[in-house]
């Protein structure tokens, strides 16, 4: 997986396509998926470009099949990705649980839509619980990364591949229709792998070695207990080593916003405006939603008078913010389940919290 010697220049790019570029740069040559709005640019791009570079694109009959194609290709030791949106990710939960149990790496992209059921196709962060707490059975975890720009759609996808391989575990990139559809300049920095590519556990035929398995069933003695503690320690290691966050104008902030993805991006504008008015607002942006930057959230809460959680849902990350700090009385929430909050709305809330009237 050597980085190709390409000329690096800024270009205008769409978020969903940046995910594809990041995946391809990271050496992913297998993509399987099933169409669902608002992520169709990803399979469309992959179906066009993967075959021309010796890769494989396959449209599955369902998301259930998709995630199991992924399982088979991951068990073969290859980098593999899928993308979907809420309802499709729900169908993948069975396979995700099996992959976590079987310790198989892959990247799952969720460009989420709004509400339970068929919901709507408006941008939303309503899949926070499902992503971060993991929707499948048995109590597993996976790294969840939340990009808020086209550049991050690219770089966090690369990182997701590294995390998946490092931990032999599925990893998720969680976006929404806005970061997926928006275009902005981005720089295709070359991929620098942070993990060695060897996968001695891969099923490649038992030539020259004893047979091996990829499995999640442990019936004998207390083997499943041993296995579950091993998985647990892996998740603990993620918590120690993989916390990602951004501090935005937090110095001296009496109003500390906590927001991720698209919502965080809008908050940045509102914070700039507030600062111009002399209101000291700042933001702690979780970039990894699992592991959650609890210590950093607590630190921000400790220093501020108010912690404002802004989300494009009815308040799911609020629970993790509460878990991070003892200052529950300082926590406020501003949410929109099916749309992007405007900078004006957020500024209005900041002003109210600062005791100023517009």
């Amino acid at each position, binding site marked *: 997986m050597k980085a190709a010697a390409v000329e690096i220049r800024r270009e205008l790019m769409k978020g969903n396509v940046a995910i594809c570029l990041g995946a391809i740069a990271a050496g992913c040559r297998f993509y399987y998926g099933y169409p669902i709005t608002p992520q169709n640019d990803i399979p469309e791009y992959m179906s066009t470009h993967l075959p021309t570079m010796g890769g494989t694109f396959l449209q599955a009959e369902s998301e259930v*099949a998709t995630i199991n194609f992924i399982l*088979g290709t991951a*068990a073969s030791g290859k980098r593999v990705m899928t993308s979907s949106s809420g309802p499709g990710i729900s169908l993948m939960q*069975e396979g995700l649980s*099996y992959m976590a149990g079987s310790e198989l790496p892959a990247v799952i992209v969720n460009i989420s839509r709004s509400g339970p059921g068929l919901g709507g196709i408006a941008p939303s962060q309503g899949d926070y619980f499902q992503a971060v707490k993991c929707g499948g059975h048995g109590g597993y975890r996976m790294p969840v990364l939340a990009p808020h720009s086209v550049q991050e759609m690219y770089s966090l996808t690369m990182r997701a591949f590294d995390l998946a391989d490092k931990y032999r575990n599925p990893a998720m990139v969680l976006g929404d229709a806005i970061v997926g559809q928006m275009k902005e300049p981005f720089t295709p920095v070359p991929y620098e792998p942070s993990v060695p590519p060897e996968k001695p556990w891969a099923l490649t035929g038992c030539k020259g070695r004893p047979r091996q398995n990829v*499995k999640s069933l442990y019936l004998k003695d207390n083997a499943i207990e041993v296995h579950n503690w091993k998985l647990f320690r892996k998740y603990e290691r993620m918590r120690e080593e993989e916390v990602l966050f951004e501090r935005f104008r937090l110095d001296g902030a009496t109003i500390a916003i906590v927001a991720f993805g698209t919502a965080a991006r809008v908050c940045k504008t509102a914070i700039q405006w507030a600062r111009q008015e002399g209101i000291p607002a700042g933001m702690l942006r979780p970039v990894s939603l699992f592991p959650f930057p609890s210590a950093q959230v607590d630190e921000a809460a400790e220093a501020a008078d108010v912690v404002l959680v802004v989300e494009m849902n009815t308040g799911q990350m609020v629970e993790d913010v509460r878990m991070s700090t003892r200052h529950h009385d300082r926590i406020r929430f501003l949410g929109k389940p099916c749309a992007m909050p405007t900078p004006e709305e957020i500024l209005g809330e900041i002003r109210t919290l600062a005791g100023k009237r517009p």
Partner: protein
Amino acid sequence: MFDRPKSLVDVRTHFCPGCHHGIAHRILAETIDRYDLREKTIGVACVGCSVFLYDYIDVDVAEAPHGRAPAVATGVKRAQPDKFVFTYQGDGDLAAIGTSEIIHAANRGENITVLFVNNTTYGMTGGQMAPTTMLGQRTSTSPYGRDFRNDGYPIKMAELLATLEGTAYSARVATSTPAQIRKAKEAVRKAFEMQIREMGFSIVEFLSTCPTNWGMKPLEAQERVLGEMSEYFPLGVYKERTQADFV
């Protein structure tokens, strides 16, 4: 003459006395040996009494969620087209929860080989009704006997899959007599050849026993396969592609 196949691990199996899973395993291992495929085979185990395939067949094996083995095999074969890839599935696995995966793998002409063990019940979970359960058959969830008005008809997978363009080979065999076992080996050999020659999807359905859950002695179970079962599920080859005639 009657040695243990190289690809069969020398351990006692967990199968009940009179169960035919073991016979199918042996045929599978012999055929892997015959084509010298042991070191380039990846098997996919399903959920059911046969999940411990990886303890008995001396090859690399992945485990699939219930019914999804054809999809897992697809992912393996697409990643490693030079390897020999098979699934081993029961009727609950393949004909109930996994119908979508098997039909679409066959329809894509996925170049994999499926061994399908039909014992007309869910063995592992204690003998509940399967899609292959015979009309009138009593199971723990059809205590009055399967009634088509309530439960539909026993599903004939070998015939169904033979109708799909992507299927290169589909046959139903049994292993209740030495003559049947010879034919079963022949069918598995053909199914392997289809994959080796890249002709498309191949499946062999085995009529099998589950004496434990049928509440029968092993010999009675044999009789049931030879009689009632093979009457409704006729043995034979339902599709055999002779050349790569697909376009």
